[in-house]
């Protein structure tokens, strides 16, 4: 019993140590993270459904705002989504990034959301960029 408790304590302590090391460092920007061309070419099936943007706002608030900020302006955890560099990406590229995630930067995989909800997120992100809601506080 003593041995097993020591094993448990060692596992917990090593986990805490590793977490502290990683949480203290800022998330790295992965410059090589780009959507495959076929994915980037996909069109948003809701591009004519501006009424769906509000649903995207709700999902953003539930799933994305802690890291990317309430208005997608970015935080120290994740970059602003209203930057020009994001705006230049196609809807298909953003859809792929939201769906796939990136384990290196800590961006979660959101493919568990139905595809239409991910397209709604993109409508909201575009709307935020259009209204200039960014403060630019986020990192690239």
């Amino acid at each position, binding site marked *: 019993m003593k041995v097993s408790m020591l094993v448990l304590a060692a*596992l917990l302590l090593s986990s805490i140590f590793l*977490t502290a090391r990683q949480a203290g460092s800022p998330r790295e920007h992965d410059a090589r993270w780009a959507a495959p061309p076929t994915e980037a070419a996909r069109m948003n099936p809701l591009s004519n459904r501006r009424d769906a943007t509000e649903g995207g706002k709700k999902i953003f608030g539930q799933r994305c705002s802690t890291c990317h900020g309430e208005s997608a302006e970015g935080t*120290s*955890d994740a970059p602003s989504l209203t930057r020009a560099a994001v705006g230049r990406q196609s809807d298909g590229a953003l859809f792929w990034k939201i769906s796939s995630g*990136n*384990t290196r930067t800590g*961006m979660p995989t959101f493919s*568990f*959301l139905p595809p239409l909800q991910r397209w*709604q997120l993109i409508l909201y992100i575009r709307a935020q960029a259009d209204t200039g809601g960014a403060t630019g506080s986020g990192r690239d």
Partner: protein
Amino acid sequence: MSLLRISILGLLCALALGSAAFASAQERPYFVTYDHYLEERGNLEIAIATTTGIPKKNEGVYTAPWLELEYGLAGWWTAELYLEGVTTHGAGHGFTGWRVENRFRPLRDEHRITPVLYVEYENINEASRIQKEIVGSGSLPFEPIAELTQEQAHELEAKLILSSAVGVWNISENIIVERNLSANEGFEFGYSVGVARHLGSLARATSCLLCPENFVIGIEAYGGLGSSEAFARSEQRHYLAPVVSWRVSTRSTLKASVGFGLTSTGDHALFRVGYAYELPVWRNR
């Protein structure tokens, strides 16, 4: 301290700490099958769940509760701690042990089939009945719990998790290998497969509790296949279990399933209920 008290304490801590807004990843709808979605880095999920079994023979009904702490150590690494117990109708109750598991996602991006590697150490006893996975063969032991808790087992378990997102569907397959370090039982094998989907596809603009987008339904099948020592098909246990998951709030999920025993060595049914609460505990800001 009893498992129930630990569970209640954990839940209260979660509720107290969870006042900040936070982002939420997906709580899997399955009880046994794992998909490729890991806990978000810096997020802690506290879950309580129970497995209630209705045995086929004259043994009494049992309920096995467990507390689960799941933490996202990195984008590619999630660790979990389990504390578990059991209570029975007429055969006593007791603490049945703990488990530490780690899941690693080796690939940066999602693929058509995304692999996750799973390694678990179990320090449990023979009274363990949560059945978060089933390996090997034969039915559960039904001696008095006080006797079973004296039989300790140190076990190592590995899983290959393969999971795919196909439109609104998730399809996951787990291949399980377990080795008892306390007794020579060979390598024991098991499996689980699951499919699930959201009920809603387009999100409504307003928050709603009962709208379809908050529900995930699916079905999973799991069981033990035998071991390197014995592969008797008649001794295998297999279950088929519909599952439903309800996102009660941004932070919490309630899920339930009924597993129907398909073989004579299994129980009639396994009723499972679980509640998970997620909160950020370590952020850069």
